[in-house]
């Protein structure tokens, strides 16, 4: 097991809350501090690429991923991200080759992975109870190994974003234009789809299948309202997601709230979004 105790000490120093004394809460906090910015930054591009439905389909393939693990008796920790990655790349490939509209392609994949997951789960009642965990997410049971994996993913994503943030924006504006101006559009799209699939699968752990898309989209949507430039959009998305994750976790652990962590985080993010809408209205009025 990797030793993360120094990080935990730093956390409890910066955020001196009673609820953060417990080990599992500290782990959850670290997990969220790693996961939330990743989801937010990828979310900026998900919104630009209009890929919300894509990420929805990936998150729903979590069931099938776990089911596969059960069939081959491999830990779902492995089958879930791997299966998500596979589905993500497959959707991207079919979407690029086919003349069908992208939501049709995704819809077909969506149905297939859901049906497969349900078919396997329905054979076994005890598994069905386990599946609840994926519906609502369970960041509080995150292990040190998960955190280590998140850390690796975080670094990979950081490198990817540093190298391709500008180019992804370009592709998001218009892929034909980007390609004509010698951007390797296909390569970027596949890398993006792969990384996004992995991040979506880890977000399933944190906030559950039902709320993954929210974790990607809501900070980016708020950022769009706040920001005046593509550079600023990045920072706003980071700010919104991090503050939502931290306050969400702390609120959910209070005695008066005692709510599901994932849902609480998303609610805080949605509050941010509402503020951003008001902000953009005020700005529009003052400009015109």
């Amino acid at each position, binding site marked *: 097991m990797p030793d993360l105790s120094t990080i935990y000490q730093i956390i409890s120093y910066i955020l001196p809350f009673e609820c953060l004394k417990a080990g599992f809460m500290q782990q959850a906090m670290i997990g969220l501090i790693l996961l939330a910015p990743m989801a937010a930054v990828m979310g900026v591009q998900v919104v*630009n690429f*209009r890929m919300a439905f894509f990420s929805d389909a990936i998150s729903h393939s979590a069931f099938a991923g776990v089911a596969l693990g059960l069939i081959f008796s491999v830990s779902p920790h492995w089958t879930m991200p791997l299966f998500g990655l596979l589905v993500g790349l497959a959707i991207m490939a079919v979407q690029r080759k086919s003349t069908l509209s992208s939501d049709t392609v995704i819809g077909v994949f969506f149905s297939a992975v859901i049906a497969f997951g349900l078919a396997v789960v329905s054979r076994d009642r005890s598994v069905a109870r386990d599946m609840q965990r994926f519906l609502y997410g369970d960041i509080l049971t995150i292990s040190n190994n998960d955190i280590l994996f998140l850390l690796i993913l975080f670094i990979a994503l950081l490198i990817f*974003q*540093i190298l391709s*943030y*500008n*180019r992804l*924006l*370009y592709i*998001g*504006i*218009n892929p*034909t*234009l*980007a*390609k*004509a*101006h*010698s*951007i390797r559009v296909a390569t970027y799209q596949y890398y993006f789809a792969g990384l996004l699939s992995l991040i979506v699968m880890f977000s399933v752990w944190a906030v559950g299948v039902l709320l993954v898309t929210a974790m990607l989209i809501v900070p980016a949507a708020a950022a*769009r309202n706040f*920001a*005046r*430039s*593509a*550079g*600023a*959009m*990045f*920072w706003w998305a980071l700010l919104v997601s991090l503050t939502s994750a931290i306050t969400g976790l702390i609120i959910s652990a209070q005695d008066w709230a005692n709510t599901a962590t994932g849902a609480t985080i998303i609610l805080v993010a949605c509050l941010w979004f509402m503020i951003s809408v008001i902000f953009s209205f005020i700005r529009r009025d003052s400009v015109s």
Partner: protein
Amino acid sequence: MNKPDLLDKYADTAVSFESVTVEREGILILDNVTAMVPRGGCTAIIGPNGAGKTTMLLALLGEIQYKGFIHATCNINGRCSRIGYVPQRLTFDRGMPVTVTEFLAMGIQKKPLWFGVRNDMQKRSLAHLASVKSEHLAKRKLGALSGGEMQRVLLALALQQEPELLVLDEPASGVDFQGEYIFCELLDGLRKEKGFTQLMVSHDLATVTHHATHVICLNHKVAAQGPPRQALTNENLTAIFGMHMGMVDSRSMPDGSAICSGPCCSKDQDA
């Protein structure tokens, strides 16, 4: 064919289309199109709506599948390594917060835009905007530009590629008088200075006769091609547009060359 032979064959040709056929949903959009684009010149593709002009450019850019061959040999190495493209209209998400300066930088700047646009990059894009008389747009949001402003920014973006081949799809649609001047005279000047090849689609026969050095008349097939005087005859125009186009030779053919400053107007260029 090996490379030296190829280069020999295409010595004066920037792009050559050879029996290019594009079929979409069972309809022949380009039917066995064979045409060439002379190097260093301004080639215009003309034809009615739906003739396949945009399709021809997209095939050249590798954006759609086609049968046949397209050889792009802009430079002496037999390649077109830098292409500038101005699309007919840019469909994009207008809600995206991107400034014009960022738009011009995002294809070439390595440092991620979240640290801002580099100073030299800002200067560079400002210079390119200035060349299309649009410096004032630098700080504006891309989604808030008018149609003509957008066309100018797209031209600045294409020029920023320092293209060997500049592909323009109805560049002057929606731009004002000054804009038309920019899109024609400015590009004529730049082309002479930098020696790139220009390939454009245009519906404005006056522009074509004044500025093009080579014309391809297209209506799914190539009806005619050659220097404007030879290609833009009444018979050819009637053939592709299906109506009599008498106005062309009476009003805008550059016989009284005084109004025309384009390179096509001087006699020696025509030959």
